[in-house]
């Protein structure tokens, strides 16, 4: 799929980093850098960079084929509850499906989103892998 280069540059804080949006009015925290609080609509928000660690709270093994996705199937798509509180959707990669379970600790890593651009461009962004024990 062809993506706009400027989109990846413009959205770098949501695809090369993870931010959370803290609301100064209702107090809720949402994933991603946002103009307004999605819960109460307030502009009184603070953007805080996440450490990129969290817990897998739900996931699916997906065989849904889209143009250019063949080489990545099956993919694991999951919801990750970040240590900062909010939930983010993302792909879980580099994982043995037999060892994956709800509650797995995961961390964000830079990986390839797609590479089927007609001009040969490769698009990167953040995915999650099980936490590497050091």
């Amino acid at each position: 799929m062809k993506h706009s280069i400027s989109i990846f540059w413009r959205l770098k804080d949501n695809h090369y980093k993870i931010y959370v949006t803290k609301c100064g009015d209702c107090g809720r925290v949402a994933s991603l850098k946002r103009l307004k609080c999605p819960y109460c609509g307030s502009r009184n928000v603070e953007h805080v960079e996440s450490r990129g660690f969290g817990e897998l709270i739900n996931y699916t093994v997906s065989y849904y084929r889209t143009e250019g996705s063949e080489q990545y199937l099956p993919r694991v798509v999951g919801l990750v509850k970040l240590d900062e509180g909010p939930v983010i959707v993302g792909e879980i990669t580099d994982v043995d499906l037999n060892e994956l379970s709800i509650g797995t600790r995961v961390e964000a890593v830079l990986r390839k989103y797609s590479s089927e651009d007609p001009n040969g461009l490769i698009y990167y962004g953040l995915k999650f892998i099980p936490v590497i024990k050091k």
Partner: protein
Amino acid sequence: MVGSGVTKVDRHYDKNYLVLIDEAVGKTLANSGLDASDIEYLIVSTAFSESILNQADPSTYIAQNLGFRNVKALTVSSGEVSGAVALDYAHALIRSGKASRVLVVGFEKMSEYPSWVINRVYSKILEYEVEGIKNVAPSDYAALIMNDYMRRYGVSRESIIKWSIKMHENAVKTPHAQLQFTISADSLSKALRISEPLTMLDSHPTSDGAAALLLVNESVAKKAGTTPIELVDVESSVNLPIYLRDDLTYFSATAAAYKRLSSRNGVKLTTNTAINVYDTYDIYGLLTIEALEICARGEAVKCVDEMPYLNVGGGLKARGHPVGATPLYQVHELRELMSGTSWVKYDGDISLAHAMSGPDNNAWLILLKGWV
């Protein structure tokens, strides 16, 4: 509403969108006492004509090719609820007195390309800059929601498929339905997986089709050759993206829209009310009848067998999902039911169509009533 017509939902490789629409419009205008030259507004709903057919504003070319003269033509595109939004606009034009004869036409051609191309197009119903760019698919969300529902309420995977079994049974009796065959729970283990635990048996098919509805004011309706059905009210609401929801198993946009619609019109749905809801995936159908307060939360599977007028056309699951036309198919099926031309007899006064884009991201309700 004094007329409606649909094409068979199918993979119409041999027909372009104009041929499909011509058939649906012809059926709609028949017996209405009106022809194309009487139509004041032509409102066209499609979700993906720009993506799939490379056609912006198809309403112009429908008017040019199908004999609409001096008509005000426009296109409505609002994801999977395009048809409901088009109906709301038509309803407002009639109610305000700005128009007395409005034709709403919906269509989609989802079989123009192989499934892996169309799957990418269909995924545009999610937020591109957040979900689309990461290749998150609509079926992935349905799977996550199904997981949560089964865990929270102790519902088994095998029991959820009851919804799809009923939809296929209804589709067998519906001439315009796409999947006119029955399925059984035994097939579940062999079914093609989409996003685990979701399989092909839980999902809508890829569909082409066109549907049309003719809305007129009261004085025109009295002269029509058919018994009119009243479009009483339209209501809608928007939900948060699912990763920001506190509870994935509650369709709060559908619930909020229903509370407003119910309160304003003094209606309450029961298991005996004719409803036609969006079951893009069977789990969505179950959550919708809970959000509409017909069944208690976690109990929808038990209700399905007690609802004789649930998705009588087979739902998106088995009638099919020609996206821009789907809400119009739903209303057409309810109109047939209320005017006594459906395969099942219905004595109720009201009926309700429910449409939504994605997993309750944008939910719309259309309330119909028999003509008094």
